[in-house]
């Protein structure tokens, strides 16, 4: 496919791997922020191609993984109510809440549906005026415009039976939180290309200046990722720290102005809890007051559901790049995609699930896995 095959070309990949090998004079630790990038890295085995010492660590960029437990429990409480049709992207159905996952609730008779777009949920609401239709609006700046559009559309169509359970999170405050942590070991970031395609690159400039850390905006194909790694290493080796856009085919400096306007109209910044990480100030979006009628937490009064989490799983450390999935004693034994102990094992984009799916058994096969911390 045009615009795709050239980013999966084996010769181009080999040339980039050689260039990385020439550029790197010492070990470097680079974090890819986005779960989609993690997925590409393990799906294409990019970590098995890189020179020893170049370590890729996986960031908090899986929206499914970082959705806090109490939001999952709120989703369950809403979905279990009579007369509710609960819509979600597929990944969220398997995320364990305190009492089970949404798939289990579905098997018990709840009307839980997988949709491909929040606008599908709006259409379901329009076609079923006797039911309350709720969409689970999770994700980063990438999924937010479509979710904002669904609220805007529902308002325009005068729907009174549609609402959003909002758990949106933002990337820049999270990168700041990772860099500010005393145990941080990330030396450069591969910036999430699709986030920048929406909101632009400018928000990353203060981070680069304050923390002297390179951020290379990178796409999602294998060649994009290898090129991003090369860019990060070139900056690190030269002692530079800049925001560098290596995803120019999709990212404009100002992002997508129409999406930004829509987001500003519908959402406002709020403090947000991240699963495994905790509360990060100004790291999320909630619906503005003008859209309060479309806020499912408000409509179903589930905002007071709190859930206490324990110390069982190391997902929090994995999300901050401190540990790798295989450092967890439960990895691949008690904790598998079929029996996830923590959210990073649930979503296909979660670091643990990605490692389990594509990498768990590489070492016994004689294939090198990335260096252990």
């Amino acid at each position: 496919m045009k615009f795709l095959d050239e980013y999966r070309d084996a010769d181009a990949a080999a040339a980039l791997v050689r260039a990385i090998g020439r550029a790197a004079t010492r070990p470097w630790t680079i974090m890819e922020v986005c779960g989609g990038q993690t997925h590409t890295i393990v799906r294409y085995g990019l970590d098995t191609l890189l020179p020893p010492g170049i370590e890729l660590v996986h960031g908090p960029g899986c929206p499914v993984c970082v959705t806090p437990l109490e939001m999952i429990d709120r989703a369950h409480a809403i979905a279990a109510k009579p007369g509710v049709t609960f819509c979600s992207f597929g990944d969220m159905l398997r995320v364990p809440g305190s009492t089970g996952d949404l798939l289990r609730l579905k098997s018990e008779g709840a009307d839980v549906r997988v949709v491909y777009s929040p606008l599908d949920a709006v259409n379901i609401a329009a076609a079923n005026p006797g039911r309350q239709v709720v969409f689970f609006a999770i994700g980063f700046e990438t999924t937010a415009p479509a979710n904002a559009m669904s609220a805007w559309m529902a308002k325009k169509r005068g729907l009174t039976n549609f609402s959003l359970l909002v758990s949106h999170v933002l990337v820049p405050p999270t990168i700041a939180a990772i860099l500010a942590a005393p145990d941080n070991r990330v030396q450069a970031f591969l910036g999430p290309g699709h986030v920048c395609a929406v909101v632009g690159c400018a928000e990353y400039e203060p981070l680069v200046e304050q923390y002297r850390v390179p951020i290379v905006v990178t796409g999602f194909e294998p060649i994009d990722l290898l090129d991003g790694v090369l860019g990060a290493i070139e900056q690190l080796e030269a002692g530079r720290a800049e925001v560098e856009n290596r995803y120019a085919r999709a990212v404009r400096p100002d992002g997508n102005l129409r999406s930004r306007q829509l987001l500003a109209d519908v959402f406002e910044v709020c403090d947000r809890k991240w699963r495994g990480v905790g509360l990060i100030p100004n790291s999320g979006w909630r619906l503005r007051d003008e859209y309060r009628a479309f806020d499912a937490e408000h409509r179903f009064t589930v905002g007071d559901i709190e859930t206490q989490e324990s110390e069982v799983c190391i997902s929090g450390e994995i999300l901050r790049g401190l540990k790798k999935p295989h450092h967890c004693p439960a990895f691949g034994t008690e904790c598998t995609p079929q029996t996830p102990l923590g959210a990073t094992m649930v979503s296909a984009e979660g670091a643990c699930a990605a490692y389990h799916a594509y990498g768990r058994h590489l070492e016994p096969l004689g294939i090198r896995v990335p260096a252990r911390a």
Partner: protein
Amino acid sequence: MTIKGFGDCPVPRTDYDRILLGHGSGGRLTADLIGKLFLPAFGGANATALEDSATLTLGEGGGRIAFTTDSFVVRPVFFPGGDIGRLAVCGTVNDLAVAGATPRFLAAAFILEEGLPLADLRKIAASMRAACDEAGVELVTGDTKVVDRGKGDQVFVTTTGVGVFPPGRSLSIRNARPGDRILVSGTIGDHGVAILSVREGIEFETVLESDVAPLAGLADTMLTACPSIRCMRDPTRGGLAGVLNELAVASKVGVRVTESKLPVRAEVRAACEMLGLDPVYVANEGKLVAVVPADDAERLLATVRKHPLGRNAALIGTVTDGRAGFVTMESLVGGERVVPVLAGEQMPRIC
């Protein structure tokens, strides 16, 4: 940053106490259901219980037959390239054919939902008849039940089939040996993506059609030309990855495939990209996977490509003496990864 403990990680969940959709996905939940519930209940005395068809010996000198059954619950009932009737005939015929048997007789049981238009049922019956003629089988007996409106999904069809083994033929998924080559008879993912595109109302510039077809003729051609074939499977639910994993486990071998060799239609690739699906997990209804000794592989490939249902056939990988039970893939850019069995349904990724 305030770092808090990760959580009362709610521990799920192989202990589902109800049936989930994932139990029908052909992935690990399905395997659990069979291995932990059905086999203990039914005994599993026949060594071929987990093959696509059971092989039964009919007394001394009575020859051997293949015996299989399958139920079809597809939605929508009519889809591009076929319908539930054609699917119900082809699915069972193909399970017999890949066992190496010549399909002969079918039984069909219908569960009909009150309100189903007779015109639809008539079309389904005609489609079944046409597929039977194509496959060279006779539909010899059947059953009909009707359930209240809302208690079914228009029509469910169960077909049961009997085939006859030519003397001396023995295929089993346990037969693969290191060094063998793996052949797939055509493009993968066509059926699953065609169904998904109409089910979800996703429109593409080209019509995505199911590959549903009876494979008896192709299988017979292959086995006649190349009797050394070790085993064959049709990669339906669970897709190509499911079959390769079954092969690796049952034959206690490693399997290594090369991503760049996998035949995938451009439109299926595009749809999978859009939906966040991996074509190796998408269902097929008119393809087979064959394992063949390396010396015969190219000759078999040439034979398959001459058949109308095998024009896009390819040799996609090798059976290895690597870690038994695991399927690995050389990615398009040369990296290595494991191709596991999915836990349940393949979930489209969020972004």
